[in-house]
């Protein structure tokens, strides 16, 4: 049942990505050419609101629905953050999609993006297969 809750949050997130045109190939081209504020406006409102929310959740020690303490997300540095990040940037410029928009692009009627999603799954799998030869994991 709880999973239906996550499905619902996913719908809201997907709706915001779609209606905010963050899944649009055109918007991503415009963003990387720095020719409009639109996409940067999305980041510059989403991040402070996320940050203030996390601050308030931890300050008031809000518990989760099941009564557990909320754990502040931590991210660790490794070389893949830069190398993988740049490779992802290439893919983002080509497809106009990050992983989230891939699902929403399919939903919004560009069915052929299923092929892009399958290619992304292959990319994930190949990374898993060869990661021990890559900087940061050996």
């Amino acid at each position, binding site marked *: 049942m709880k*999973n239906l809750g996550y499905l619902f949050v996913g719908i809201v997130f997907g709706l915001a990505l779609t209606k905010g045109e963050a899944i649009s190939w055109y918007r991503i081209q415009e963003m990387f050419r720095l020719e409009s504020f639109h996409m940067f406006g999305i980041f510059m409102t989403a991040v402070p609101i996320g940050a203030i*929310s996390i601050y308030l959740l931890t300050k008031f020690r809000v518990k989760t629905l099941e009564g557990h303490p909320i754990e502040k997300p931590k991210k660790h540095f490794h070389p893949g953050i830069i190398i993988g*990040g740049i490779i992802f*940037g290439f893919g983002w*410029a080509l497809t106009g999609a990050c992983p989230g928009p891939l699902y929403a692009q399919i939903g*919004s009627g560009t069915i052929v993006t299923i092929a892009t999603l399958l*290619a992304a799954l292959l990319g*994930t799998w190949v990374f898993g297969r060869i990661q021990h030869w890559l900087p940061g994991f050996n």
Partner: protein
Amino acid sequence: MELLYKPWPWYLAGPVIGLTVPLLLWMGNKRLGISSSLRHICAACLPAKIPLFSYDWKKELWSLFFAGGLLLGGIIGGLIFANPDPVAISSKTIEYLSSIGVSQHAGLMPTEIYNWENLISLKGFIVMIVGGFFVGFGTRYAQGCTSGHGILGLSALQWPSLVATASFFVGGILFSRFVLPFILSL
């Protein structure tokens, strides 16, 4: 009614996206992030004894429900209540795109690139398949994508996520400036 078909301005889409961060944490300590769903699908379908995919993916089922929600959100916002007008990108971008042979029609995606026949053309294959591969490979290597690093990680003031987000943009800006025009002109 007409309002339902209109695109959202950034000052509506951004805050809604930002609010999913505390919502997921509050619902069950879940971290916003979508590239991990790709990993879970690999773990479910073809783990092949690869350490990265050898874990109990069923414990991460929420992530697949969340991804399913994204698909439904796309159906609602992009199909049922689709904006009948072309995306209102800047005239500079329109000019650039038409100079390399990409015209703009109603809809979120350029259908002259994104269609089934094109999958076997060089241009379509590079854009859709090589591009998709880079997205999957790169996000897993960076251990996160635009949502996991760019929204959640930055919201949690994690400096590695700032490096990640900067890398995404460095890659994307350089690629779209120096490589993409040649690919799109193919």
